[in-house]
């Protein structure tokens, strides 16, 4: 409610935007992130914590390379190339290799999803703020209920690249923010700029091959009793995760802008941690359900993931 008031005050002058326009804006931003060549410094802010990363992205002949390097705190480096993401932790001498299947949901938002977006968020597009030296369009997704965060995005007016993104809670407070402080769009990106710093992986490092491959689409037998309105199931199946003897049920619900994942797996003695974990705009709620551990994770407020987790039951 508070957020609604703040938003209304700030964007009183901006006319509401049609759902179709919002969907088009999302598609443009998603496309720009994938196809453009850019490099810059990203500041990530979550609560009182601020971290800085260097990001470089290269698309060459439809192939993507991307490198994210932490500039403060413990050294961390993430390199994405082809269908793979490598997480390097040089202090621990560990590299984690994950397959990455890219799914661009936006060009294919269904008419129903677009309708849902418009039903649960109000959009406004405001022109003309400068971010990292670029003229940005500001797009606001203002939630109409307390079950989702407010989103404010700044995209480069010229190219559509997302320059800044902010999540707001119902009080209008910033939950999390990503922002380029400097960025060169359509820059000449050298292959070296997107290559891992540790090639080949030094012999004294541990290589952790992650991922259990594709989801096997199936009815998992689990359902959410109190799904917040506007969320629709977009995937249901079983995954085999590394180190887990049993397949894990995975169901994803989305309101068109964010997603919430439900994971259910048999409880083992080592999994005793239940309750809420917050990581910036991501909230995770774990709870026991008989002999199962239910974990709900998504870019939604704590109350939303808790409500979903506590209403998971056998069909």
């Amino acid at each position, binding site marked *: 409610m508070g957020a609604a008031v703040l938003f209304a005050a700030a964007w009183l002058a901006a006319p509401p935007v049609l759902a179709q326009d919002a969907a088009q804006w*999302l598609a443009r931003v998603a496309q720009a*992130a*994938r196809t453009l060549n850019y490099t810059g410094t*990203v500041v*990530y802010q*979550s609560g009182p*914590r601020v*971290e800085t990363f260097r*990001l470089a*992205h290269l698309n060459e002949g439809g192939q993507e390379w*991307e490198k*994210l390097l*932490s500039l403060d*705190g*413990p050294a*961390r480096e*993430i390199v*994405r190339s082809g269908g793979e*993401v490598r*997480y390097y*932790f040089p*202090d*621990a001498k560990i590299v984690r290799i*994950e397959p*990455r*299947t890219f*799914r*661009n*949901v936006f060009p294919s938002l269904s008419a129903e999803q677009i309708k849902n977006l418009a039903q649960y968020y109000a959009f406004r597009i405001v022109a003309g703020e400068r971010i990292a030296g670029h003229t940005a369009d500001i797009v606001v997704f203002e939630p109409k209920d307390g079950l989702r965060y407010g989103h404010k995005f700044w995209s480069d007016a010229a190219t559509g690249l*997302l320059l800044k*993104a902010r999540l707001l809670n119902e009080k209008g407070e910033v939950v999390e923010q*990503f922002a380029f402080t400097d960025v060169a769009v359509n820059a000449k990106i050298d292959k070296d700029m997107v290559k891992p710093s540790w090639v080949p992986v030094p012999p004294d490092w541990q290589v*952790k091959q*992650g991922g*259990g491959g594709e*989801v096997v689409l199936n009815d998992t037998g689990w359902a959410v009793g109190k799904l917040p309105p506007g969320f629709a199931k977009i*995937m249901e199946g079983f*995954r085999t*995760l*590394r180190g*887990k003897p049993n397949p894990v049920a995975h169901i*994803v619900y*989305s309101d068109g*802008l964010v*997603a919430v*994942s439900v*994971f259910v797996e048999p409880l083992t003695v080592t999994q005793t*941690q239940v*309750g809420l*974990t*917050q*990581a910036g*705009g*991501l909230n*995770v709620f*774990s709870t026991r359900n008989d002999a199962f551990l239910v*974990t709900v*994770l*998504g*870019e939604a407020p704590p109350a939303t993931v808790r409500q979903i987790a506590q209403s998971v039951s056998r069909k």
Partner: protein
Amino acid sequence: MNENISRLMDGELDDAELERCCNELKAEGAMQAWVCYHVIGDHLRGANGLSPGFAARFAAALAAEPTVLSPARRSHRPAAPATFAWAVAATLAAVSVVGWTAFSMVEVPPTAVAKAREATSVRAAQVKPPGGVPADYLIAHQEYSPATVIQGGGSYVRAVANTGVEPRP
């Protein structure tokens, strides 16, 4: 007790609990836990803290100082046992291996945790990586989340950000 010290440092105690906890701090070993948590906290905040044995050396140096004006001495606190410094080191090792992310991107080797556990009075829940949410979950989720598509490379930040989420025992 240790939990209350931890909560005290986080500013989570109400007045009555605060009073009780301050009294409990006078108990045997309580100051060790207090110091231990502050050392952990300092490291997590990136303050590199003091070298091992600093407190003992400082106490010795202070004792060797000529006393100009001596206020009433409080009851003598015994020097921390030798295992203490190692216990802190082991605990920090476990933490630094984790990288202190909300998602257990790098699992703590069980031996490191076991060592930290046996070496210190800090309870297991407090040396565990916060949340302990499997990174596999996050990665599986991101594959489907529209937020990943909007933010591109920025979405990976969450997986490795130093969120400093405190575990709740």
